């Protein structure tokens, strides 16, 4: 039973973790919090349905096309429009604007696409697996595998490549990074593009589970936001830990207490972290 819950919790947490890492990267590079992050998951999910069901592209190209278009729209266009217009004014105007953007995306999808839930198949066949006494779906393992590959690639990029180190430098000392010749605006653009790719991958994992719907990102964005705060908003490893923890808390609460309390227990942990370790479990204190 516990192994089964662990796998299911990690599978759900893997989706949260990728979105939470996106929150973290945006904050580290630009000091901005994107409150439309949930809708940033919804958009690639709709794009996948559009490419696969409407344009009838084969499955893999449909997903790749959705990731590329998402990187352009949610990375490049987002940076060149809202971010460039608002970044000099600080985080609050950006937060308010992205809350409005979230409403705009949800309502536009309802009006111009559909309010109905749409089916999108999973990348691998969904088959029940048994390991010892644990019963779980092949999708659970797949989610963990895809998230692990994406996060390891991101980790290697940030830790090993020159551009990854430049991104770290901007996160640690933006002014000095500029003095050292790093184009800070391009690094922020890169963070938005990486975020867009991360949410697109999480959309590809979430779509077969949650169905593709205009409000599918609400819960995902909110839980990933909690996850980033719990793990540490300024540490990628913190966001990863936070995502996995939130997934595990939800699944264990649903199994042992009630599904109705699963969000409540996440909030209890969130409040405890804010009270006793406001920088998050793995986060570092920042001077404002």
């Amino acid at each position, binding site marked *: 039973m516990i192994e089964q819950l662990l796998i299911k919790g990690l599978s759900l947490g893997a989706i949260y973790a990728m979105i939470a890492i996106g929150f973290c990267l945006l904050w580290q590079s630009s000091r901005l919090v994107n409150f439309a992050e949930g809708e940033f998951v919804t958009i690639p999910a709709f794009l996948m349905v559009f490419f696969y069901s409407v344009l009838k592209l084969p499955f893999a190209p449909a997903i790749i096309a959705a990731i590329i278009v998402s990187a352009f729209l949610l990375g490049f266009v987002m940076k060149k429009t809202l971010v460039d217009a608002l970044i000099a004014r600080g985080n609050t105007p950006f937060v308010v604007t992205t809350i409005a953007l979230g409403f705009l995306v949800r309502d536009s999808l309802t009006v111009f696409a559909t309010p109905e839930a749409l089916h999108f198949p999973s990348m691998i066949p969904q088959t029940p697996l048994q390991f010892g006494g644990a019963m779980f779906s092949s999708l659970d393992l797949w989610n963990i595998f895809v998230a692990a590959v994406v996060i390891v690639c991101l980790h290697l990029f940030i830790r*090993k490549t*020159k551009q990854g*180190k430049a991104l*770290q430098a901007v996160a640690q000392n933006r002014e000095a*990074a*500029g*003095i050292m*010749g790093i184009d800070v605006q391009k690094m922020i653009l890169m963070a938005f593009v990486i975020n867009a790719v991360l949410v697109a991958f999480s959309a590809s994992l979430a779509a077969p589970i949650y169905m593709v719907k205009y409000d599918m990102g609400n819960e995902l964005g909110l839980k990933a936001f909690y996850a980033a705060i719990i793990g540490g908003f300024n540490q990628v490893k913190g966001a990863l830990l936070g995502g996995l923890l939130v997934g595990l808390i939800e699944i264990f609460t649903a199994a042992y207490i009630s599904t109705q309390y699963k969000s409540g227990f996440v909030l209890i942990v969130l409040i405890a972290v804010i009270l006793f370790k406001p920088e998050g479990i793995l986060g570092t204190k920042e001077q404002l």
Partner: protein
Amino acid sequence: MKVFETRGLKKSFQEFSALKGVDIHVNEGELFGLIGPNGSGKTTFFNCVTGTLKCSGGNVFFRGKDITNKGPDAIYKMGIGRTFQLIEMFPRMTVLDNMLLAIQESQGSMFGRLLTMNEDGNVKRALDLLGFLKISHLRDEYSKNLSYGQQKLLDFGMVLMTNPKLILLDEPTCGVEAEMRQELMNYIRDLNKQGHTIIVIEHNMDVVMNLCTRIAVLDAGEKIAEGTPEEIQNNAQVIEAYFGTEEDEEC
């Protein structure tokens, strides 16, 4: 030949004028000193020149090009490097990574750097410089764990990584022990002999008087004197503004 010049450089912070039209020129190969009491605008001058702060008026020229209000990254790539009065580096990166970061943006394109790692040549140069600064044993230490003096040396090493044409040193020997201070002065002289143009802000009068061939004095955002060390030492206005008010100030 003038390599660097400011004409009527101004910087205001709301009502307060930190620089009130400063004219300074530095010739190629010169070792130029910029001194003045605390709050006279020396570091603000560096910040405006390097693009960290936007100038409120006037112009900055480097090698005949107007670089006024260009971004700090663009100015760095043109060949102006600087150290900081207060330590500015990347605290959760190792000493070696800090050194390598100082040079990587001057090489190749953004896309070229996207999936590449640092070259052996850069690593060798970084290790050579760390060796000279006697901090090579700290290469794998996070820079936040270094002492103030060690961080100052790292800051100096980072500037030297790119071999900049114009080097701005903001109190380079402050907080560094006497023996290393002498070595740093020798190294600054060597760099100058190799053809680097250097502007030094320094509080230690022994350092600035022994090091520089020409000195300008700022007071309350205005240039009040300019000349050789002897001329500055004997200038009544300077003595009143600087030596008269702050005797032998230690940083």
